[in-house]
């Protein structure tokens, strides 16, 4: 019956982080030459690969095209080897469809789609290893990929999950924490303006705590955005050094 103690009295979490500390984020941009943009991002042990094609002409049915802006097409998938137990994951199952939809909504809010009427942008994200916070890792990876593709965005979209334990918000949950019965909230933020691109929460939470939880999530997102910004700058520097030669 002894459940895990998610936050010890001294303020340590299961993996040794403090409540507001993020997992270690590592990222690389431009990992595939064939795609227009691509990025690989590790957040702790959750690893994701994002690939962006476009903007290009509408493929498939042309009737879906919008006359004033681009259509964003997202596809989320998990590798069969991404979890502890190998599991075949067919395309189009409920979970990944939902996740694709969430990603689409997020990026529709961030990408300046009105610049590309009657065209399409494809974002493919694959989780290579899953250890909690899949959605937010996907968003962060896709942001880098979109930037890599040179598609104009209003701002970085940074996402982070937060949980609520013992009246304390925990930033960036890992799988053990997510499955340990924490009410978790996922938030995607455009950090400069502080606009929320997406906010999702399925668990029960007292209304009084919501504000502090969102506050914590926003701080965490801003932390992520700093890391992403650094990655982008470093990538640019490398790229410019290469082109100069």
């Amino acid at each position, binding site marked *: *019956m*002894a459940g895990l103690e998610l936050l*010890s009295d001294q303020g340590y979490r*299961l*993996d*040794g982080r403090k409540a507001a*500390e993020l997992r270690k984020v590592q990222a690389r941009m431009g990992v595939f030459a064939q795609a227009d943009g691509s990025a690989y991002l590790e957040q702790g*042990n959750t690893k994701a690969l994002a690939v962006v094609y476009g903007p290009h002409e509408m493929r498939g049915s042309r009737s879906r095209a919008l006359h004033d802006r681009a259509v964003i097409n997202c596809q989320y998938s998990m590798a069969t080897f991404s979890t502890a137990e190998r599991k075949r994951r067919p395309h189009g199952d409920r979970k990944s469809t939902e996740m694709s939809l969430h990603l689409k909504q997020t990026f529709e809010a961030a990408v300046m789609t009105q610049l590309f009427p009657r065209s399409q942008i494809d974002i493919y994200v694959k989780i290579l290893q899953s250890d909690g916070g899949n959605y937010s890792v996907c968003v962060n990876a896709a942001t880098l990929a979109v930037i890599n593709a040179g598609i104009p965005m209003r701002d970085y979209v940074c996402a982070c999950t937060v949980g609520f334990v013992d009246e304390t918000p925990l930033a960036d949950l890992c799988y*053990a924490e997510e499955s340990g019965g924490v009410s978790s909230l996922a938030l995607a933020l455009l950090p400069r303006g502080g606009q929320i691109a997406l906010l999702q929460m399925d668990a029960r939470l007292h209304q009084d705590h919501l504000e502090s939880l969102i506050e914590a999530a926003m701080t965490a997102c801003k932390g992520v955005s700093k890391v992403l910004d650094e990655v982008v700058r470093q990538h640019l520097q490398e790229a410019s050094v290469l082109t100069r030669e």
Partner: protein
Amino acid sequence: MIKTDKILHLKSCRGRKVRVVREHYVRERVPCFSSLCQAGCPNDGKVLPEDLTHYVVPDAEVVLNFLEVLEVRELQGVVFTRTACQALHSKGRRYYNRLRNLLKDPRHDCVLFANEFQTYSYCPREKGESQEAWQTRCVYAAAVWYYNHLAGVMNIVMITEDKNAVTQFSSLNSGVFVISLEDYLQDFWPDLKAAQDLYSSISQALQEKEAEDSQREFPEHLPAEVLEAGIKSGRYIQGSLKVSKHRAQNEAFINNDSLFSKNTGVLVFGSKSRNRAIHGDLVAVELLPKSEWKGKVTALTEGQVDEKMGEDSKDKPMPTGRVVGILQRNWRDYVVTFPSRDKSQSQSRNSQRILAIPWDRRIPKIRISTQQADVLQDHRVVVRIDSWESTSLYPNGHSVRVLGRAGELETEVQTILTENCIHVSPFSEAQLREMPVNSTEKLWTVDPAQVEKRRDLRESHLVFSIDPQGCEDVDDTLSVRSLADGKLLELGVHIADVTHFVSEGSLTDLEARTRATTYYLADRRYDMLPAVLSSDLCSLLGGADRYAMSVLWELDAQTLAVTKVWFGRTLIRSSYQLHYELAQALLNGEEAEVPELARLDSEERGIRLTELIKALETLTHVARHLRAQRDQGGALELEGVEVRAQLDEERNITALVPRQPLEVHETVAECMIYANHWVARKIQEAFPYQALLRRHPPPRQELFSPLVDTAKAAGFTIDTRNNKALADSLDRAVDPQDGLVNRLLRMMATQAMSQALYFSTGSHPEDQFYHYGLALDRYTHFTSPIRRYADIVVHRLLTAALAVEEGAELVKPQSGNKELEELAGHINSRNKAALLAQKSSVGVFQCLFFKERDPQKDPCCVADAIIYSIRDNGVLVFVPKYGVKGPVYMTNRDGQVVAVGSDGSCEWQSGSVRRYSDYISTTSCCGSASFRLFDHITIRISVTTINCHADTLNLQIISNKPHCSAAPQQSFSQNRNQMVQEVVRLAEEAQEKAALKPKLSKEEREFRQSRSPNLYSLLEEVRELALMDLEAVSQICATTA
């Protein structure tokens, strides 16, 4: 922060092994919590002192098995590692919480070091390394880190039970010693006998466990996941197991609020289906098929003697189940008695295992392995249960502490305290150091800075207190005056400002919080606060300047409607310290001597006296009005010592002391209730989600049925629809011939009530705030902060509420809803324990009182009793003279029944008993007799001595006529007081005797005489007999025969 990966192999739910990778972050700055730290660790909270010879780091295994030894307060400088913590956590939540409490407790000198998160003390588990070895290595690494971190200033001792580790590590580092726990205790703490005994008793219990044979006695418990799933699906019922007090062998019930709200619960019949659950455990039960359901037994049984009655005399069957698993053990410390040798020898000749019998009948016998069995015969000992394997009929335990020989007063009182989980040690040095000083050399005076901040009522108000005579801790005072030319009245209640002296989080505060209340036993009390506060600085003594928290109402002089309320901190000087009798005498206009006025000349005395009497009269007038208001709402007046003390604002729970129902009592109580009510409103408005209030839930209707039935027998109807109807019908139910009838009915009504409880407003909907007994929508406790911790909390809340009002930055209330609810639960349980302890201590004294008396001769042992309930084989009676309730049997063990002779005297004869709804009749060869409800009978009180449990009073009927004693009727409470004094005196005498004894034995040794009676003394006795007159001799013969 550096990220590493930790690879675990876990079992998945389907039983497959899964490789799980978890992140693990380590960092360099992990606080060490030592005051010697030179690296500037952010140590907040408890730190280890620097004046120790060494720090001790226990290994995970030591923490797992010997946590109790480490709990000994004398062991200082203990560093628990996170590794050990995690190991304990996987053993069970209960153990882990114990460690957490230990770490939080400022009185224990121990800290937690998060060794696994420190870069240099973290060692990843190697391939093929066993968990135990890895844990030991981790702990050792932590010990080495500590040594280096403190720059070698402090020696570190690591204790482990692993012999290999001792040899492997001991010579690696110079400042880090690795030894076993046994050696550690012997080398470093040779004086600490208690810890060593504890160690040996635990290790013996562990060895026994290993050597256990494997014959199954009980079915295995189901695993936790299965139970959880079963409870969710409704297959199993979850609830806490309550063992019946009178039929502990067979009957136990599961109380579950949600499922069986109408029913009394689920019956668990027999020890097999109870399956190793112990009273108080949280269990899951499975219902048996309906054909196997059993009924509850309503017949009176004599202790645990005759079980055969259960089979035939059951009434309607109720849901019956069996325990399939235990969700949470709720084991506490138990008091057991070691049986005398002749019994124990037959059980266990070659092993040292003893079956000790718990004091509480609801607990099964506990098997204890000890080498001190001979010494501990007939002693009461505190034990803890270690485990109960399915192979064993009894649980295994180990002894912790010896209380003393059974039957002695001190032992019995300690037993009561332990059984109710009351731990009261004297206040420690550190706590007393926090206290302000008030002695003759250094008088405590009012701080001028405080005078600035407080409203000064010393000159403007006439403040006085009314308390029982000889009361030391005066925590409430009253004042009343008229304002605006008599158009307004100002009523004031001034409560001692305890929170000024006890700041939150201080040692005194923590101690008070754990005690939660002052414990009143029959002959002593254990204060919640140190004496310097409770009877001096916080006590609002007459003529002394004191800080107070005041509530002042402005009332309209005519309608007595409240126009304004003021709350705040004040400075008062009580002018009169009255007692109830004196105040009543003044009110009645009788001549009374007010001690405060004795020294004044007659003229001034007259003026002062009229002033005081005027104030008292106004007060009474206001109180009557308030009472009438509440009566309209349906406030109850209940009888019964317990509830009375809890409902009203009587101070010294000398509530054992008689309360001649004076009107002044009511007046004071009414004012206090009013103050409590207004404070409750105030704090609830200020903190809607985290205010501490007190609620009294309405009673369950079915619990009233005995009351209604009994009343019907006496010809009254009781309406229990709501509190108003109940109060009215109780008022009507008065028998003009027998005043006791009403009292009994009120007592039964009290029994049907549920307890009033503290709660936090955030965790209950608003419609449950109602106080049923007082008929108020919101109520709290505010007026006795000296003896109740709840009042201290309420004082703090009120202070915070006032600060908010004054526009201070939104002051955070001290604690959130969750903490407050936890605290409320704690206070409730402590209050319950205090009540139980008080009740059982009175019981002990009653027994000791009657034990000294010969029931056949002493007139004290014969008393009048009134029947208030009928059972299958007897009746329940109330003895007004001693305030005792108990069963009187109509049948004895040989199947004989009570027969009534022509003169009313009763004797045993063979016959039969029949029970009817309102009377019970016995038929025997000399006719039949019946006993009705509310009949007065004469009973004889004797004591049944049972070595292992509390003694019980035995009531035996000797006549069906009311007993008319020659002695004038005394009120029972006076008798009680007498009784307590008498017993204390006897105990003291016994002690003196014991002190004399060693002297005698010394003489004996000198003259080398044997202690058994020798021929000389025998002859001496014969000579004395010869000198006595014949009458005396015959008397002696009669008594010895």
